[in-house]
């Protein structure tokens, strides 16, 4: 169910975000260029797999969180809301995996 999925992905993201933040803090030293990013990500399969998992976890976690917020703070609920959030989840998944591919294959 959604609650289980959200808490499970939360644990996954706790690890992924920690790694991501550490990476970002390290990588932005002295400014960030495309060359810096792509030098690390290009052809790096481990990197791609890590961020692939990250994207999938986010695509599950974020829409479920938004669903709670919208149901509590707006009159929107039921099927229409669920379908809209499913669309949002698929969009995040598509854009996210596309981005991972972009920096892997660039």
């Amino acid at each position, binding site marked *: *169910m*959604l*609650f*289980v999925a959200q*808490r499970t992905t939360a644990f996954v993201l706790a690890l992924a975000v920690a790694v991501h933040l550490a990476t970002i803090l390290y990588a932005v030293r002295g400014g960030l260029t495309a060359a810096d990013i792509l030098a690390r990500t290009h052809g790096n399969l481990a990197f791609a797999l890590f961020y692939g998992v990250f994207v999938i976890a986010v695509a599950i976690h974020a829409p479920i969180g938004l669903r*709670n917020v919208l*149901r*509590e*703070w707006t009159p929107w609920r039921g099927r229409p809301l669920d379908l809209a959030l499913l669309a949002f989840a698929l969009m995040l998944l598509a854009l996210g995996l596309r981005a991972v591919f972009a920096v892997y294959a660039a």
Partner: protein
Amino acid sequence: MSDVLGVDIWRGTEQGQFQAFAIPRRQHQTVLDVVTEIQREHDPSLSYRFACRVGMCGSCAMVVNGRPRWTCRTRVNDVVAGDERLRLGPLRNFRVVKDLAVEMTDFFDKWTAAHGYFEPGATPEKDFAVVPPQTKERQAADAGIECIGCGVCYSACDVVAWNEDYLGPAALNRAWTLVNDVRDRGQSARRSAVSHSNGCQACHTHMSCTRFCPKGIEPTYAIAGLKRALFGWAAR
């Protein structure tokens, strides 16, 4: 200390207004003393509830200067400083019957919906159950068993305000005490009753229930227990 206490009391139902009163300020007044004096000496049409007067029944719960509390256990001096006025309103998140009295039916209906009652099963045991008080389950149950259904936690809860179907901290706390009751035979039905989007899953750990409970019960942790348990139940 001033001689006079200014009091604003809600009159009406969901629609209404605050009515102002002035009564003598006395050293050890409780808010219940104030309301009773106003109803008896100033305006007999004021509606409010109380019973035991000594902090055992929870009937006198209402919102005092923005906080839900028991009026019999609230000294005026603790909530009003100097010339501040005392402001009394009915508990939030309940329908208002009249003035300071609220409709408790929905609150107790949710208690039932959460299976907050003991289920002995079709064939009760022949002998007394042996339940050592030090067991983990009994300690978890004992931590929440003193709830008297006063409604303060329900009044304080933001999620109850945002989601009218949310079962609420009191009902879920009671369900947790029964989940931990090893004699109970209704666990399967109770699990379904509390593990859904309007049950324990809706709690966002704001902790206002725990903050305001006059008996020091911590519904937040009871609900956390239900959340943990539902992972185990989902796995099965």
